[in-house]
């Protein structure tokens, strides 16, 4: 083959060989123009194509382009190899045997830390309930549809399903696995365990993180925290439920707080109620927060539905009980008058440092 590109392969091989010898990023930067840039032999060859007829020029141009790409690829590889080597060098220089750390030489400044607002609120509520004789129980965040809904007397397509906007997890058959929408599935687990172990009665509270498919706004987050209580014992009545709610709200919010129950509907309790407490903003005189009623809705509660007891094998003629639940975040929001709940997940130090 004759013509301007007669020696192209040799030129390329020469350039590739040169690339191989480069030992540092600085050297690569310095030599790159001479290898693939304006001062490269390839650029010179490019200029020499001017005399060719159009067809030959097109072919030659394509060959030259391919050659240039090979060289550039080699330079790219070289750059990566050198960067990796440089990183390895720096990391090696940085190496620290953590087994050899001498504690007394690690500097530290005295500085106050701060617990999370939700965690702290949860701990305070737990303490109130423990003092009232409740054990604290927990359960998983991913549950089956069965535990989250059906065992709680909420079969598929039950109109009450609309009360919970559910995140479904992509496992198994469609809509069989959910991010729990409430901590209630833990109640079912507790009752099943107690039946299996013959360890009734139950007096437990269950705090935990729950999820609802609600677009976050100032009042709601898609993830939130709830605490539920469950009592299964002999001779438990609605009066016991109302009394427990009154006792814990006074213990947590203060002795001047009144509670009020009003009828409501939950598929797993009957009778069901919502409970309200004296508005913490206006102390009952009426303000915008409480729509001028003097009352703030805190949570839901009710006597365990006999169907729920029967589903886990507890005889509703022998045992009765109640359940209640409310938002931990909401308690915190009320006490600290937090205008926008989204601050809870932004983790801005200026917010976090306010709670202790």
């Amino acid at each position, binding site marked *: 083959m004759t013509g301007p590109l007669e020696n192209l392969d040799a030129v390329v091989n020469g350039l590739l060989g040169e690339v191989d010898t480069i030992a540092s990023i600085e050297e690569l930067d310095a030599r790159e123009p001479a290898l693939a840039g304006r001062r490269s032999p390839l650029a010179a060859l490019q200029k020499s194509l001017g005399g060719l007829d159009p067809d030959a020029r097109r072919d030659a141009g394509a060959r030259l382009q391919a050659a240039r790409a090979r060289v550039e690829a080699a330079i790219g590889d070289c750059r990566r190899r050198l960067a990796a080597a440089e990183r390895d060098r720096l990391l090696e220089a940085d190496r620290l045997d953590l087994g050899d750390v001498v504690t007394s030489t690690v500097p530290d400044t005295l500085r106050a830390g701060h617990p999370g607002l939700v965690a702290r609120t949860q701990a305070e509520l737990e303490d109130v309930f423990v003092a009232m004789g409740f054990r604290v129980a927990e359960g998983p965040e991913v549950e089956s549809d069965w535990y989250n809904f059906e065992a709680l007397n909420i079969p598929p397509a039950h109109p009450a399903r609309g009360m919970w906007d559910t995140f479904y997890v992509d496992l198994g058959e469609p809509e069989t696995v959910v991010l729990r929408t409430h901590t209630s599935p833990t109640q079912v687990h507790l009752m099943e365990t107690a039946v299996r172990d013959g360890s009734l*009665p139950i007096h437990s509270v269950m705090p935990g993180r729950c999820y609802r498919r609600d677009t976050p706004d100032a009042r709601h987050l898609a993830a939130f925290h709830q605490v539920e209580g469950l009592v299964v014992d002999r001779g438990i009545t609605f009066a016991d439920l109302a009394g427990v709610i009154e006792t814990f709200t006074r213990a947590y919010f203060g002795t001047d707080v009144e509670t009020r129950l009003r009828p409501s509907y939950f598929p797993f309790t009957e009778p069901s109620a919502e409970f309200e407490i004296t508005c913490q903003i206006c102390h009952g005189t009426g303000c915008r927060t409480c729509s001028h009623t003097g009352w703030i809705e805190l949570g839901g509660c009710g006597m365990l539905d006999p169907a729920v007891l029967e589903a886990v094998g507890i005889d509703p003629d022998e045992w009765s009980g109640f359940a209640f639940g409310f938002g931990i975040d909401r308690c915190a929001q009320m006490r600290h008058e937090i205008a926008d709940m989204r601050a809870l997940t932004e983790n801005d130090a200026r917010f976090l440092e306010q709670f202790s």
Partner: protein
Amino acid sequence: MRAPLSWLREFVDLPDDVGVVRDALDDLGLVVEGIEQVGEGLDHVVVAEVREIHPIAGADKIRRVVVDAGDPEPVEVVCGAWNFDVGDRVPLARVGAVLPGGFEIARRSMRGVVSNGMLCSSRELGLSGDHRGLMVLDAELVTTPGEDLRDALGLAADTVFDLSVGANRPDAWSIRGVARDLAIRFDRPMCDVARRAPSSGSPTSEFAGAVLEAPDLCGRLTVSVLRGVRVGPSPAWIARRLELAGMRPISNVVDASNIVMLELGQPTHPYDLDRVAGATLRVRRARPGETLETLDGVVRALAQPGRGLGDTGEDVVIADGEDRVIGLAGIMGGAATEISDATTTVLLEAAHFDPMTIARSVKRHGLRSEASTRFERGVDPELALEAVGRFVAILALSCPELEWVAAPLDVRGEVAPPSRVVLRAGEVTRQLGTEIDDDVARRLLEGLGFVTEVVEDGIAVTAPTSRPDVRTGAAGRADVVEEVARLYSYRKLARRTPTWPSPGGMTDRQLLRRRLRDALVGRGVLEAWTATLVSEAQVRRTHPDARLVRVTNPLAEDEAVLRTSLIPGLLDAWARNVARGTGDVRLAELGVVFAHPDDAPGRFTRGGEGGHTTLALPRETELLTVVLGQPGDDARTAVALWRVLAERLRLEDVVVRAAPAPREWHPTRSAELVDRASGVLVGRVGEADPDVVAPLIGPVAPRRAGLLEIDLDVLSDPASARRRPDGAIVPSRFPSASIDLAFVTPAGVPAADLANALRGASDLVERVELFDVYRGGAIGEGARSLAYAVRMSAADRTLSEGEVAQARDVLIAAGERLGARLR
């Protein structure tokens, strides 16, 4: 549900004080979510006739409008609505008027044009929710410019309650149902409203047909023929009533149907009889392949299995005499048989459908209607013809020749009979803990239509047909007790704080968490809460090959995957704080991470319909992760923090072991935390990879971030992370002796192992502490000098110099057994 007070008063005489009614509704469980006062705030709102409309230079959203408001001079206002023309009559709020929302009308200047008042929409006047433009008065209405708007429209002040009604109160999804509860509460009689009866003459069967092919899904099908219909607008009070209740008036026929549904709770569906083939309605299951164009203009494929659990795709449809589908039963009719202005004979369907079937169809088709909302909850099967009688009475107001053809068709399907339960004597008191006399309970229940009867062992209670929610057995008894409690008033129920012998308490895991949190807070750490649902990219930062656990219906694509690590979220939060200039923070989170069941098998649970299948669920691991990001913090800080935590938890012997670093960790400044005896990995300590930190922190000075990650599942298992025994050692009263020993130690021997060997070498050793590490100089390549302070004592004597020297030799020998040589 919106319930106008004036409408409730048609059924029961109510107190004048709205607050008293509101309180009663709340206490009855018909929660008042809002109260709207209508017809108030209309002082200085008058009828105005539009005379001229002019553009305003430089403004394309507003125009200058000149109106005649009955004054000697025309009034100029600026208006942003476009739905009116010259000659229309519209409401003008004069300067000084205060609209229902409290908005005060003042003289304002916009774009240099002075506006002397405001032309209003229906919503701005609190008359309806309509805000699509100005309220243009009906041209047929006789009005005069300048006339008070209330006089022109015949408006009276009214109160509308916005009620939230529970799913277990199908009977309260109507004005009459709400009124019935109030009648019991205020102990006042219920009134009835006008109804018409069918005419005498030829029976309906001569003109129409009704066929029930799915009696299990349709409890009752009634078909009525109404003659003498003249389609037109409803009387003004009907239209107003609908608007107050939140529906738009459409035509007298549709309005009558809506009024009856709102008032009594029975949805009805009017068809143009001439457009229904064979004038026959046939209720059957839809067949695969059938389609229907519903009134909203959407063509819907029927009988297609849905996504929901146990959803087989069953749709109940209404078909005509030629078996063509003309409506999705109980949800929405088809476009083809709709009432039109030309309709003269109406075929009226009033039926009862199976709630569950309707609910599934609603969900599958994503199509909810006022009718389906009621059928889903359960409509009283006995209500159908009563509702038609009311429909006829209302439609007759605008169709004087209306005739309800004799003997409407009435086909019965299957409906569960109303529940009957026996409350044992005193059962109400036993469940509620409040003394409620059985006679009081009976009176309350009978007010709602329950039938009660004293039987040998108590009171037999039969639910009314309007209460399909009342069950049988123990659950049914609870349902009835709830009704008694509700009507009696929850506020009057007794309270008692129960006690029980078993003490309250927390689990070891919960106590562990609290100790960790306390210790962290004591070291200047802020507790963070980062997202559980993250982007795929975020998961890939730490777990490039993990199977993802996805949410099928995320709110956003970058919140679609369950997190596998707390590190990316915490590093991002740290970087955000640095970027906001809020600081050099130490952040920690205690939280759950998730692993796909195929990657981490072992968690199984009951699932599927009826809980009959076994499901594999993601493994949930609770981690404590700490990012130490104050200036000066690095891997050493993380190690020191770990030692504080380990001390706090009384861990026996968890050691720092060199190990390859996972993603996001610094490859040469990270290590594992391993329980020496069990060999179980407790966590990891080190620093964030500089290549991760650099892009997060940006152009500020190079910064290190210490990292600590601990697995709480391991930590709370005493077999994996062993704790020191509780037994305490009383220290010797005799002085202790301290010696320093520096060993040249090969690279492969961890400092902790050497310390451990020294500690175990002699009974005299009390404590061994590393105080210096030295490399270089005369120390050979790869090795380092480790200097320990060793304190020794004996319980019964002061150690002699000889004893100390002897012990020193033993310690040196112990070091040598590990390959360490005294320096």
